[in-house]
């Protein structure tokens, strides 16, 4: 995973609530066996017409937002299906950070494992950032994970909370399987104890 570095970029306003992962990437694009290349189908059914041409009124098709790196979203973003194709599609498009009041649990986990930073802010802060984002290329937003702050175009800083372990993994670009395997001995001890006490729990062949 690439290290997450401080950046400043165009933010796209995406105000609807409960944007589900089917909307982010419809199921028929889940036939891929790769993690890459899904950006072109991000928000596919609201982004393109039936003949494949772009819908002019869709925000990411507008010149100012074609290279957006931050997405400012409505409540409960990423609900529904557990498909990791949703963060894959967002990052493949170029989104590096999503800001909202709340996110669905599975989407939240999936995003951090792919270097996509999700930031929770208050409804007032989110609404202010939506207004910034509405100004398109004229309003770049900076994301500083190290110091846990969002910097608005006018210089105002919005501090945010982030889980220390997730922050560490993102900043260092760490693979958490490697980290967990450092506890391999403890996992083995657990397995030995469970096998002695509840032998039926471990595995069963079809």
């Amino acid at each position, binding site marked *: 995973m690439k290290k997450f570095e401080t950046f400043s970029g165009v933010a796209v306003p995406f105000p609807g609530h409960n944007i589900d992962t089917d909307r982010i990437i419809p*199921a028929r694009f889940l036939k891929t066996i790769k993690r890459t290349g899904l950006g072109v189908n991000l928000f596919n059914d609201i982004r393109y017409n039936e003949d494949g041409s772009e819908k002019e009124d869709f925000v990411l098709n507008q010149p100012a937002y074609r290279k957006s790196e931050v997405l400012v979203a409505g409540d409960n973003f990423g609900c529904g299906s557990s498909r990791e194709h949703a963060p894959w599609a967002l990052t493949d498009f170029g989104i590096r950070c999503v800001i909202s009041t709340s996110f669905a*649990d599975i989407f939240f986990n999936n995003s951090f494992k792919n270097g996509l930073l999700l930031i929770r802010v208050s409804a007032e802060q989110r609404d202010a950032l939506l207004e910034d984002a509405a100004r398109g290329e004229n309003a770049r937003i900076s994301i500083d994970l190290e110091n846990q702050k969002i910097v608005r175009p006018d210089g105002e800083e919005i501090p945010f909370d982030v889980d220390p*372990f997730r922050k560490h993994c993102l900043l260092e670009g760490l693979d958490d399987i490697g980290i967990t395997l450092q506890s391999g001995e403890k996992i083995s001890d657990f397995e030995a104890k469970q096998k002695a006490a509840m032998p039926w729990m471990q595995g069963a062949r079809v």
Partner: protein
Amino acid sequence: MMAEPKTLFDKIWDSHLVEEKDDGTCIIYIDRQIIHEITSAQAFDGLRETNRPVRVPDAHLLVADHNVPTKGRADGIENEESRIQIELLEKNAKEYGLPFIDFLDVRQGIVHVIGPEQGFTQPGLTLVCGDSHTATHGALGALAFGIGTSEVEHVLATQTLLQKQAQNMRITVNGELRPGVTAKDMILAIIGKIGTAGGTGCVIEYAGKAIEDMSVEGRMTVCNMTIEAGARAGLVAPDQKVFDYLAGRPMAPKGAAWEQAVAYWKTLISDPGAKYDIEVEMDAADIEPQASWGTSPEMVAPIGAVVPNPADIDDPAKRETVEGALKYMDLTAGQKMTEIYVDKVFIGSCTNSRIEDIRAAAAVAKGRKVADSVYAMVVPGSGLIKEQAEEEGLDQILIEAGFDWREPGCSMCLGMNGDMLQPGERSASTSNRNFQGRQGPGGRTHLVSPAMAAAAAVTGHLADVRELVDPQAAE
């Protein structure tokens, strides 16, 4: 000193805790994982790239379900991408020596149907799958939740997950469901009440007489849609019904191990006085047959109601969301729910494709005909359910009524195998999500129970099944 009373979730969590880090992040042991073709290819690639083995091969069960054709599958899979994905699942199973069920095997079916059916799902286990409806397995008292592909790889490599402990929420449904009202109506009513983010960050334990009275299959329907309320998992305390359900299943413990297991399973109840972060109580008798009208599972109403009017909503953001949903669904405020006409009816999915669901649909279909304007399909949840339904003659009742009787898989729940709605088409569906485009781009979905779906099929519109079949007589 008395030990602190624990919830069922706390008990299962504590018994699987490997390590807790300073910031509260825990390494949790995962006993079982079910793996399907859509969310696993990239996980196995990850293992290969890092040269990591699968830690406990027998802890996994692989089966294809999302992408399989539901007609004529013995002739092979026409869609090349689907075929590659399904073949890759088998190749990965063989390469790593993992238990695998072939898609032509009679035991094949939807992951959340076959886990319990094979006895792979058991009380007190932690069980995961790269699919959000893994919550289903909580009906047997397993702590079960959906994960993404990176976590599928994490479980393959380490047999654990990194998590923080969720909060405890309890939903108590008191009293008895009225005749003609089902588990599906109950969970739709619950989501309508608490909202699509109502359970975020929680594990929901379902309790109360209406849950105790419910079959294990019905509890699966309730737990299945827990994710539509945003919760990580749903749980029901295992009881004699669950033990009877599991006894003799192929992967359930046998002999002395069975006795030992049941003795342990009986301890899996929340202690009196256990604390919940959130408590919700409902009266089962207040629940009517439900149907969704919008583009989120919280947008539901009793079948006797009318489509809501956005003008009645004060919160501007919510009003806008409802306006958008009605526009997408092509519905008018104040329109009677029973005056919504459908083009397709889908009976299936991990929510409602079990034998009692098919029986409920057949009871309505018997002696009736699918309306001329409707195409209706029934997709059993597994090959074994299909076989049982055929032994009971349910397939004949449904076929005679004009339903299409198909082979098991996820099918039109998510429309990725070619079973889908065309733009503008409207369905009555026993599945779990009415999101925009879920069943096909531009498709419009109304979530209902199997009996209500059959009622829509024969009348051509959403209908109160109690007006077609005397619910007292049906029981």
